[in-house]
């Protein structure tokens, strides 16, 4: 399976059910598969067909992550901190460089932590935990709105 080289997919997920993102190449079709389904002209095994959630392509995941986090961070304390430091120092590019490096570091830590957890926890538990965490984030945001 060819996949992106710079981060390997979690092994447990690829073992559990082989799924292919739009950036990967489909495997050669096994000859034993009798006939393709009518709505499946490529003859790809139906288990590898993308489901609404897990089947989200690279760019769908990227876009939904981008939009939700951008909305959540607009007007948040991190943005206010960069705003205030810039207003005081009048050195926007240095402040931006420091803030951007810090944000890249914290997101790398977050994504690595999630990836590490997903390899050690069963998919069901991981999904429940992920849903609970996202709901917590939603509640925290609503809490912010109430406190504004």
């Amino acid at each position, binding site marked *: 399976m060819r996949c992106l080289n710079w981060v390997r997919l979690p092994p447990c997920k690829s073992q559990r059910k082989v799924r292919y*993102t739009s950036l990967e190449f489909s495997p050669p079709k096994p000859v034993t598969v009798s006939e393709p389904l009518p709505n499946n002209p490529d003859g790809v095994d139906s288990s590898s067909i993308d489901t609404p959630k897990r089947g989200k392509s690279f760019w769908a995941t990227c876009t*939904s992550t981008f939009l939700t986090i951008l909305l959540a961070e607009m007007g948040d304390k991190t943005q*206010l901190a960069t705003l205030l*430091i810039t207003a005081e120092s009048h050195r*926007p590019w240095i402040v931006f460089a420091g803030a951007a490096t810090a944000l890249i570091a914290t*997101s790398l830590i977050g994504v690595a932590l999630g990836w590490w957890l997903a390899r050690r926890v069963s998919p069901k538990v991981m999904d429940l935990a992920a849903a609970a965490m996202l709901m917590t984030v939603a*509640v925290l945001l609503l809490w912010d709105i109430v406190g504004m």
Partner: protein
Amino acid sequence: MDWQLLSLSFVTVFLAEIGDKSQLAAIALSGSSRSPQAVFLGTVTALVLASFVGVIIGEGVAAFLPAKLLKAGAAIGFALLALGILMNPED
């Protein structure tokens, strides 16, 4: 290069973001997604853009940000992502 200002903004933002909502979301989304690279790219782009907007506003460009409305939109978005994970029929 003003290293003091650089490290000040780095440390401030780093401490503010560690364990914050967006990092929690990054952990959850990358753990339940097939492509952590996509989650990383989306998170970094959003955060860097948000801090860029903060820097621009701080430099005096007038801008009106309906923060309440944006946060409400984000809350709905995260709730939908959570429901999407829960309602996934397989596994």
